[in-house]
């Protein structure tokens, strides 16, 4: 129960930071600091990086999106607006996930930690890219569209590396690189989707608003493949 209150408090602070840009930024920093403390607490409590279940992965990815904003706000985006909502989204989604403090012996592998760690970075970058795409659609400032493309490209690279590391880990743990399940197929669909967007954008086949919209829509594919496939399509349950 106390976890729920702490997370709701962090969400409230993040939400309050939307009210006024200058004061809001300070509140945002406080929320981010508390968020960081909570992730550190989870790390010490678990005894390993907090990336072994969906609850911790979402919290860690949310923290990263918050940290990116410190850079983005200083260098690129003066009025962050929607960006403040990103950690809220992640913490809110984490509330609905089961908190699992144990890991199986097969998961206790450096390849697994590499896979999950890269996935956390990819999740945070791809969602940040989508929200910057929203900012572009709202303000029509071309820098945002370029920024969306570059951040999504970085996220896609981490996502690709995560898939490779995950395949190696699974081969070492179970003897196969790939499983024919809806979950794996949707992870591949997500990879294809972002490949489509990045290829199209690279050769200017997709430009301007259309490119931004397709990039923004990617976040739905991403979250469906991560959180929606198991309950909706009936794929086998996974801890992470």
């Amino acid at each position: 129960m106390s976890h729920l209150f702490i997370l709701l408090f962090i969400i409230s602070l993040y939400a309050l930071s939307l009210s006024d840009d200058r004061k809001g930024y300070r509140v945002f920093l406080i929320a981010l600091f508390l968020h960081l403390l909570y992730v550190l607490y989870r790390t010490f409590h678990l005894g390993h990086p907090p990336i072994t279940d969906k609850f911790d992965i979402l919290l860690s990815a949310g923290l990263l999106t918050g940290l990116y904003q410190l850079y983005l706000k200083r260098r690129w985006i003066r009025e962050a607006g929607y960006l403040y909502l990103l950690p809220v989204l992640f913490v809110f989604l984490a509330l609905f996930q089961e908190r699992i403090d144990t890991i199986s012996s097969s998961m206790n592998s450096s390849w697994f930690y590499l896979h999950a760690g890269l996935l956390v970075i990819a999740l945070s970058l791809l969602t940040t890219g989508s929200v910057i795409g929203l900012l572009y659609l709202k303000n029509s400032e071309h820098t945002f569209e370029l920024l969306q493309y570059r951040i999504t490209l970085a996220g896609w690279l981490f996502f690709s590396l995560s898939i490779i590391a995950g395949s190696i880990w699974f081969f070492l743990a179970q003897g196969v690189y790939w499983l024919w399940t809806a979950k794996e197929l949707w992870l591949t669909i997500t990879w294809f989707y972002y490949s489509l967007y990045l290829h199209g954008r690279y050769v200017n086949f997709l430009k301007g608003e259309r490119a931004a919209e397709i990039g923004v829509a990617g976040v739905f594919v991403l979250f469906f493949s991560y959180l929606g496939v198991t309950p909706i399509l009936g794929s086998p349950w996974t801890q992470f």
Partner: protein
Amino acid sequence: MLRLLKSIKTALVILFLSITVFVAGSIYIPRNLSLFSDINDIPLFRWLSLNYSSIGKTFWIYLAIFLMAARGSEKICEREIYNVSLLPKQIERCFSNRHKASGFRE
């Protein structure tokens, strides 16, 4: 043919079709668990030959294999766009000589 394979639009079409085929697969697998229960236990082509009679439910795997092969070929041939050569130099030279001989312009 080479021009078609080199086109980035071909890559986009292949990616779009791959997404469609994989979405179909993600719907077929959970609805036919008894059929797909041993797909991860034996090599894929052996599994496909054993379950040839259920092609109505496994057609998307054949399509996925074809699309992956097409994507691989396209990737090798699109070297000019990314300025990266994946072909052995001899084969590449053979292509470029043939283009010169036939007046092929890119």
